[in-house]
């Protein structure tokens, strides 16, 4: 757990994420080994300007197709690390299920990709800020780097579908 926590703190540092609680009181999750934040705290994740390509997947443990495609994101994170691809899994789990259902799931699955939790009750306040084309359904994935940005409100049915998109972001 300490190891996990140090990874998360490192990620927190590199992405500039902070437990900002302007909108929501999320102090009760301060002891968890992952970032639980409202949109303001997560915003830096969508505005990194470096040589990394970010693949930000919105998911939840209650979302069947999300769970199905998680292995593709894990594999992408593993196999494309050296090409500077970073996967971040943004959980939209219910606040009441973060400590129970989500943490249990993460403990069981031991995901290698970074996981952060976004909780802000009124999604109408932040969905458009992630991408105006997003209606709010999940799974949904944002891929971006300094040159290009794309949003996919869809599920990926296999690894190749996901890779072909990431390839288009990277000069091979």
């Amino acid at each position, binding site marked *: 757990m300490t190891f996990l926590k140090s990874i998360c703190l490192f990620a927190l540092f590199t992405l500039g994420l902070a437990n900002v609680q302007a909108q929501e009181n999320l102090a009760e999750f301060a002891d968890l080994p992952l970032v639980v934040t409202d949109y303001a705290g997560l915003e830096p994740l969508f505005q990194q300007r470096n040589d990394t390509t970010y693949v930000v997947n919105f998911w939840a443990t209650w979302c069947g197709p999300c769970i199905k495609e998680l292995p593709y994101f894990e594999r992408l994170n593993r196999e494309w690390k050296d090409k500077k691809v970073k996967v971040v899994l943004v959980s939209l789990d219910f606040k009441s299920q973060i400590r129970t259902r989500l943490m249990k799931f993460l403990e069981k699955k031991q995901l290698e990709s970074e996981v952060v939790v976004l909780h802000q009750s009124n999604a109408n306040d932040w969905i458009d800020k992630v991408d105006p084309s997003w209606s709010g*359904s999940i799974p949904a994935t944002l891929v971006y780097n300094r040159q290009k940005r794309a949003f*996919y409100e869809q599920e990926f049915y296999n690894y190749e579908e996901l890779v072909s998109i990431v390839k288009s972001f990277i000069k091979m």
Partner: protein
Amino acid sequence: MKKLFGLIALFAVSAAFVLNTSAPGEGLDIGDKAPDFKLKHIDGKYYSLSQLQPQVKGFIIAFTCNTCPYAVKYEERLKSLHAKYADKGFPVVAINPNDPEVKPGDSFNAMKETYSNKEMNFLYLFDEGQKVFPQYGATKTPHMFILDKSMTVQYIGAIDDNVENAKAVKNTYVEDAIEAIMAGNKPTVTKTKAVGCSIKVKPVNRHLLKKKASVSN
């Protein structure tokens, strides 16, 4: 003569439905005429908006399902909406858009069970063959469309602003839209967004979902 007028009115209404429907796949926007449909309720009978239209002042169309946790959390609030507004001319018409081959929990039989277990009070229709949701441009459950008497779309989006806690709701988007229409006004807020479950389609039918990647360089 009265009969003739009735017939003409019926034709006019039918014509309005035919002429003003949007092309499938594009979905509806505020101000568009909503397309009519004829779908099966859990009692096995078919219902259409045009058949109900003479008795109503509008519709609260809810794309929803049995299985999505977001939809489940809104079940009671949908019942309350129907209880509050059906008598005032705005019935809830719920439509399950999911393909039961992808999501067995959203089969027609499962709908019947949910309906009786949850003691639902509104029409719960099955979008058999997934013909209706693409015309509306629904992408998720729950996804609300509020229509006025002329079948014009006045509001698209969320029921309210807090899925997890009905008591902590600050903005009752759907109620506000209906109250505005009843008062003869346009809703102040016409579009909102909320998280929801994607509508379940087979991979070969993914074109039914209005999902083009938005790319910018």
